[in-house]
């Protein structure tokens, strides 16, 4: 299977940033239902800042690069989700430190460590109706395809579909964290905005490869 180089990572960030911009109002309205409605703004600002700053780093080490972009995210979007994603990038980045090209299993490793980092800082579990509930199925799906003979586009298409399904599934869950938790049972029926953003991240990766 193909390798992923630093230019691909940058392309992915660019694509995610585009998608977050496109979905800004959608995310605002989802977050507005049970949160403070800023999620569309923070996602578009956070990834926007990354795209703006990423070329300033002359970095070959993809792990280092992603960790640094995590710092950028932490400064530009210090909301709950921004901080969680920043932590994910910093922890996940450190896990693949030293690599200048990645294979799918590196991506899986990055993803799993990233999720662990988010769990550690946010104290949420799978099923608590958070971003974890779309990222986790996405990464699990990627892991299943890790050793198969499958194109990277197809692997990420399937991962995206799994993440998307995970996001949809959050409708049946009860919010346990953040502002949405104040709604308790009333949160049933509403899709979690963080999980939706998680699915959009997978969408960005998939579309980048699809269009490459």
């Amino acid at each position, binding site marked *: 299977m193909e390798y992923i180089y630093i230019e691909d990572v940058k392309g992915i960030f660019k694509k995610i940033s585009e998608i977050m911009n496109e979905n800004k109002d959608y995310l605002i309205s989802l977050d*507005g239902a049970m949160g*403070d409605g*800023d999620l569309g703004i923070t996602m578009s600002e956070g990834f926007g800042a990354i795209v703006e700053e990423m070329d300033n780093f002359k970095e070959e080490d993809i792990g280092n690069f992603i960790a640094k972009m995590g710092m950028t995210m932490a*400064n530009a979007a*210090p*909301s709950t989700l921004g901080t969680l994603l920043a*932590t994910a990038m910093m922890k996940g980045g450190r896990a693949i430190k030293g690599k200048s090209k990645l294979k799918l299993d590196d991506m899986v490793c990055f993803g799993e460590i990233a999720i662990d980092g988010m769990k550690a*800082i946010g104290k949420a579990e799978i099923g608590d109706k958070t971003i974890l509930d779309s990222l986790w199925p996405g990464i699990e799906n990627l892991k299943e395809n890790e050793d198969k003979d499958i194109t990277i586009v197809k692997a990420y298409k399937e991962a995206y579909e799994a993440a998307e399904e995970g996001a949809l599934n959050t409708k049946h869950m009860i919010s346990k964290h953040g502002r949405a938790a104040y709604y308790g049972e009333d949160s049933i029926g509403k899709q979690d905005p963080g999980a939706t953003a998680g699915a959009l991240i997978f969408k960005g990766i998939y579309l980048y490869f699809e269009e490459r």
Partner: protein
Amino acid sequence: MKKIINDPNEFVDEMLEGILLAHSHDLKIAGNDKRALVIKDAPIKEKVAIATGGGSGHLPVFLGYIGKGMIDGCAVGNVFASPSANTMFNVTKAIDGGEGVLYIYGNYGGDVMNFNMAAEMSEFEDIKVETVIVADDVASAPKGSEDKRRGVAGLFYAYKIAGAAAYEGKSLEEVKEIVERALQGTRTMGMALSPCIIPSVGKPTFTIGEDEMEIGMGIHGEPGIKREKLKSADEITEELMDRILTDLPYVEGDEVSILINGLGSTPKEELYIVYRKVHSILKEKGIKVYRPYIGEYATSMEMGGMSITLMKLDDQIKSLLDKSADTPFFQQV
């Protein structure tokens, strides 16, 4: 969106510029982090430093309480959004006078995560950090889950008590212990009449009927306990007081300070009508009132509504409450 602003995206930075220009004798920024505001003579030696932080849009919370007798620094976020861990860390470095830094902030997910990250960074640089999370909003979680509650106007009391204790030369552990004790006896209940608009969003944080109010709504529009027809000031006050008094509970013989806080567009006249009822309820229950504070202490921009906070007093807390303070937004002679 009827606001006296320029570019909505410059809202926080322009506000901070105005604040720094107006209070240049009292405030400065830490290094070149425009979002890290600290007291002019920071770091103050031989005194525990107090740091806070949180989203903008709540003036005088948070940065308005930087000053003598109160707090030393504040990390300033965007409207209703946490500041970054990095800014918190910059504040911490700028105010630490060698006696350590106490973080006091409201119980919100983003803030907690970022302050925890900042505490880690600070410890890495050998700055002693302790944390007190303010969670005074009775409406936001039931009794038994006090740690899940949001922090609201009780922040003011936390700053006042912590600041006074720090200026008395108490150690970091002592200041922390005193503030925690004060907060254990602090409860707030609020109600909202009308929403506010985040400049960069441009739409109200929530909608509410022309004749409705919401009991227990949070200062960012988080849902409250119930929405109902607007009642009289006396009825509203009875309901809020009932929930406050039974939660701790406050009992006959207690002495309390009271804070009647306007959320933004509620006239002071109305706050005094509320205070009148609070006073009569407490008198009837045999609870003594000391030093009421009435005005805008923790707002949500132009939100309509108010909150009532009670803080139980003991001799030490009372004497700390009495200490003078002088900040750009709050003076006590």
